[in-house]
């Protein structure tokens, strides 16, 4: 073993608005070795198709971890809830 410990996490994903439509799902459960929101986003982009379109870097994608807005550097944990959505437009 060469140092890096890969922890596998079960994560609940949620997608909203235009991102939900592009991916074609409101949510899904994934098993991942991603440690951060950014790594998880990259993993989803690598799936291609609607994931790559909706989550592409350079787009205004907002992320929430356990229902709090978070930066991409936020660390994932076992059983956490992650949401991807476009800029909010309520009010």
């Amino acid at each position: 073993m060469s140092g890096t410990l890969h922890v596998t996490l079960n994560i609940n994903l949620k997608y909203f608005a235009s991102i939900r439509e592009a991916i074609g799902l409101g949510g899904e459960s994934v098993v991942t070795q991603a440690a951060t929101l950014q790594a998880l986003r990259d993993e989803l982009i690598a799936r291609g198709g609607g994931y790559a379109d909706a989550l592409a870097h350079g787009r205004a994608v907002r992320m929430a971890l356990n229902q709090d807005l978070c930066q991409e550097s936020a660390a994932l944990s076992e059983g956490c809830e992650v949401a991807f959505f476009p800029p909010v437009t309520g009010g």
Partner: protein
Amino acid sequence: MSFTVSIQTQDFDVSQELAALRTGDARVGAVCSFLGTVRERNDGSSVASMALEHYPGMTEKSISAMMDEAKKRFDIFAARVIHRVGLLQPEDQIVFVAVTSAHRGESFKACEFLMDYLKTQAPFWKKEVTPEGARWVDARVSDDQALARWGIAATNTVAK
């Protein structure tokens, strides 16, 4: 009184809400409120209807957090936020924010603060039906700027 949030499909009665917010609290000398409604035109197109989506759970959590922040910043007694979701038509009520205080200054400021916060931090999304088809409403940079006036950096519209 209290600080309460309701996310609902049904309409609401502004008079009843204002009465409920201040009744039983004789310290109140000022009640300020904001009511947002559906416009028939947006970004150059006529709007036939609008669908409002939200993130159940996070919506309530984010609005409770903004009320906690308003309590810290302003001398207010109670606040009420109602936001409708689902299908709405022009002239329909969408959002209601009301605040009570002893004097008008604090509730005016708190009401505006709560709306500025909600615009960029609460997970709601609007989709309009126009003659050109259905479209998601774009977030406005001016809403980020509105929150920045209160010393809170908003990055709702920033690409990354």
